[in-house]
């Protein structure tokens, strides 16, 4: 049991890593774009788990929220909107597969030789700043009992907390502007993509615009016929 607990990270890593690699291969191998997109989603989730295992919880959470949540949903929407169910029947492997395989193998060899277990950052002073939080907590004062005192504590390995601290203190205004920015982007998209002129609006529209609406309508009818 002891041994199992100790080797648990390795077991999880092997499992998740296998799934990640397998699903990323399936992304390019699937013929149906929707299936490809779903496997890409699975890859992202597995990578998020790997981030969390490396104590980069914040990056992991962002991976899930931004990539898995935002971008993938967008992908799926686009794929479903343009209604590509199947790619045209072509061979999965093109004529150049041998060359491609060699290039892939070379890149893999490069990574294997370059990326080795070890410490990947210099021990610079910023490192501790990024993963520790200094905080004051209320405690019962030892000098005069019954009154609350404060004690400074330093906590390590809390990188999401450190990010949050920076985000909501030093970068509060940029954060709030970003939220306004998203609102404006949303309304802008609606304005650009909203419905056609309604009948009420057409009454006040000048002649040349009515003529253009008419032409557009004719073109549309011709297209659909």
């Amino acid at each position, binding site marked *: 049991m002891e041994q199992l607990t100790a080797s648990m990270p390795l077991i999880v890593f092997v499992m998740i890593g296998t799934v990640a690699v397998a699903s990323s291969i399936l992304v390019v191998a699937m013929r149906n774009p929707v299936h490809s997109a779903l496997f890409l989603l699975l890859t992202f989730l597995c990578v998020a788990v790997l981030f969390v295992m490396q104590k980069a919880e914040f990056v992991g959470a962002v991976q899930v929220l931004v990539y898995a949540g935002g971008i993938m949903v967008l992908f799926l929407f686009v794929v479903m909107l343009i209604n590509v169910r199947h790619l045209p029947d072509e061979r999965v492997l093109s004529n150049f597969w041998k060359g491609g395989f060699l290039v892939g193998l070379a890149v893999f060899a490069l990574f294997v030789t370059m990326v080795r277990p070890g410490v990947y950052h210099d021990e610079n002073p910023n490192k501790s700043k990024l993963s520790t939080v200094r*905080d*004051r907590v209320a405690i019962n004062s030892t000098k005069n009992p019954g009154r609350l005192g404060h004690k400074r504590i330093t906590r390590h390995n809390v990188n999401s907390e450190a990010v949050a601290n920076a985000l*909501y*203190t*030093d*970068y*509060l*205004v*940029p954060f709030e*502007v*970003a939220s*306004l*920015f998203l609102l*404006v*982007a949303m*309304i*802008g998209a*609606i*304005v*650009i993509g909203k419905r056609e*002129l309604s009948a009420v*609006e*057409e009454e*006040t*529209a*000048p002649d*040349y*615009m009515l003529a*253009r*609406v008419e032409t*557009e309508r004719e073109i549309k009818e011709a297209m659909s016929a």
Partner: protein
Amino acid sequence: MNLTPLLEAHWINAILPELVLCIGGMFLILFDAFAPKARSLTGPIAVVIFILCAWSQRFVAVGTFFGGTYEVGGITRVFDITFVLAGILCTLLSADYLEREGITGGEFYALLMWGTVGMMMMAKGLDLLIIILGLELLSICIFVLLGFQRRLPVSNEASLKYFLMGAFATGFILYGTALFYGATESTNINVMARWFANPDVTITPLLTVAFVLLMAGFGFKLALAPFHPWAPDVYQGAPTPVAGWLSVAPKAATLIALIRIFHAMGPVLPQTKWMTIVAWLAVLSMIIGNSVAIAQRDLKRMLAYSGIAQVGYMTIAMLTINEDAVASIAIYTIVYALMNLGAFGVISMLAKNQNDPQTLDDIAGLGWRRPFHALALAVCMFSLSGLPPTGGFVSKFYIFRTAVQSGHTGIALIGIITSIASVYYYLRVVYYLYMKESAEGQTRIDGGIFATGALAISIIGIFLIGIWPTPLFHAASYAAHLLLAR
């Protein structure tokens, strides 16, 4: 958790004008959605919100806020007034224009307001992050406003062009900022200023690359000469009041942001060639803008090239940042807002297919058919060319005087010569207004009460600043003194 470093006392007073405009924009959208019958009221309500924003300047607290990332001072008030003035003029002009073109305006005015918020952020941001976010907020409003006439191919073209070029420019600015962050270890302008003030600082090629990238991005937003080709197409396709607003307000915001950045870099500027780059941008803008404008018959394109030249003049004053320079830029932007929006305002009243160019022939003989509108256009043209009793003369005079005093005599001379050349194409408009016969089936001028009011504001403002500039100049100088005193 201790919130004191987060929220200073009076923090809400610091962002009051922005809050008024944010909430005002949201209110307008809801008003548009829930009271469709009262849609004609959105324009007047937008003007009221802008006036409320100007009024809220009275309660604004002065100082540095939000952990030293946001500075409110005299100069930001002066620029806020410019932004609000441009917003009001654009709203007044749009009220009639949108009705004629059959566009409902709720979102239009809201986007105008949020764009103004972005500009205010750029003017007040002490952190490059805030400046960039403000710029992006502004840009996204501009994309949508440019493409507001979705049925017009030119409008779509303008929007798409500005979007693509703007995305590039933002990329350059972000890259430059990242490099500066790498070198100075901060995006905060005050911290950067301390870093640059260190006598041991060596100017690495990295910093020069960062500066060039930054100038390329901001040069695009200003339509400075090598980065200007988008301007004529975009102005031509944009809804005309938006084109006027775009040619004025974003430039003012970019200039004040650049003033802050240049001021922070002040100590190292003498030992670099950076200002030579900026000087070349100014010279190229003045020469290209003025010479190409002569060949234009399309009024909006002509004003676009004239705008390129005008930014060139303003850039001359940026070469050496001192109190007079900042004050003259502040005054120039106010006057420029009045005269350029006035000129675009008259063009916006030309009731013809907006897909076709509005040429000089459309205004031929206008002086006898619509005396007031012709007079407004003539006054704006006189002011743009810098003839004496107008505000244009005063502001140009301050700019060139500042340049000569700072020792940039050669560049000031180029500015004066090109601005003399520019008189030709500005006065050609006046010639068409009064000396040409109007033809049969001439384009109607279609201006309601709001647009006429906007023109009246322009004329009065231009003459007021032209005849009695001293109070404004003193206020601007004092504000500039406070900005640079740090």
